């Protein structure tokens, strides 16, 4: 940890007062985001919608990584209030991949210290196939219940939800909020499929469409969850995927 010669500012555990001798430029040189090319112009900070919130400054974060202040970056709130929207990188004259750098910093957080429910939801998805730990029978009940509601609407008579249909043309995933608080929003795509005469299906297990490893920087979890969807496609012999999440 860098030795401090003055108080930190704005809630972040670093600040203008770090001894030069405590810095370690090159420590993160293997990171593939071009952070060492920063010319400190500040365009990123001007473009960023959360510059100044909790003292956040994307330029400062890039410089911290370039100077080897890894622990300070990892313990800061900054990487988590950034949404990785990429406006900074789109405007950066040195083409530094700031969202990629932010995601790497997120990945270095202790998993138990990942803020909010992000890692808990991801752990649930890895264990149970969905972020909610929703049992299969409850999930199927919800899908069939919503399908019955659609079938009551004019023009959609006889509508049913095809679960695990082998040889369908399209497989689609489900966002967990659509079988939780927003079941009405299941209907839009299903109605379009019906009107188009589409041959489609949804999986009965491992149906989670969100992949929170993207947010927490967990590449292994991302591969596992994506691999499950690919496995569905192979098992059901479906060649097209609709992944709206």
């Amino acid at each position, binding site marked *: 940890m860098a030795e401090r010669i003055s108080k930190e500012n704005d809630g972040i555990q670093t600040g203008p007062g770090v001894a030069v001798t405590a810095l370690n430029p090159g420590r993160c040189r293997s990171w593939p985001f071009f952070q060492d090319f920063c010319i400190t112009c500040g365009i990123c900070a001007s473009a960023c919608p959360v510059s100044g919130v909790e003292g956040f400054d994307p330029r400062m974060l890039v410089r911290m990584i370039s100077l080897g202040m890894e622990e300070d970056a990892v313990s800061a709130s900054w990487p988590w209030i950034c949404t990785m929207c990429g406006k900074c990188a789109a405007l950066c004259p040195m083409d530094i991949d700031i969202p990629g750098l*932010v995601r790497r910093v997120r990945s270095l957080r202790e998993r138990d210290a990942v803020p909010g429910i992000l890692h808990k939801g991801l752990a649930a998805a890895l264990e149970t196939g969905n972020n909610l730990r929703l049992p299969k029978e409850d999930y199927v009940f919800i899908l069939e219940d919503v399908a019955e509601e659609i079938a009551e609407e004019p023009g959609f008579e006889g509508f049913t939800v095809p679960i695990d249909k082998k040889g369908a043309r399209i497989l689609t995933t489900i966002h967990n909020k659509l079988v939780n608080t927003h079941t009405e929003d299941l209907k839009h795509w299903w109605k379009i499929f019906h009107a*188009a005469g589409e041959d489609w299906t949804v999986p009965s297990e491992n149906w989670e469409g969100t992949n929170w490893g993207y947010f927490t920087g967990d590449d292994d979890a991302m591969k596992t969850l994506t691999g499950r969807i690919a496995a569905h496609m192979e098992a059901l012999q479906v060649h097209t995927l609709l992944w709206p999440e």
Partner: protein
Amino acid sequence: MDYIRNKRIRLDKSRFKDRRATYHDPCNYGRQARRRFGHGFFEEPRWILSQCMDHWRDLYPNRMNQICCGGGGGALSTGYNEQRIFYARRKFDQIRACGADMLVVPCHSCHGQLNAVKGEYGMADLEVKYLWELVADCLVVE
């Protein structure tokens, strides 16, 4: 797009003809997709929107310069809620300047964020609609 182009579905353009709709580019479909995969999905959703209604107005700035809603990157689930609401101030300035009463988005995170914070910016009446919801609402079914 395939369904519309090949006439597998028909859409009623008059359904929302009296509404003032606009479109929001999600960062991961636009700017970030262009960076990661070489193609930003900017024009495709706009084409679909134009099949659902004759008149709608784009936000300014848009496409590569679109302003983030503030709900991406897992922000809805980190617990940094005050920061997330503050983040959206520029988004709502932009929507207000456009004069829209309906905002069409093709992203679950954007949809969740915009709906959750619109009341904070005095725009509780703004209708936030998924792009596929708009299509479903415009379907002509026999």
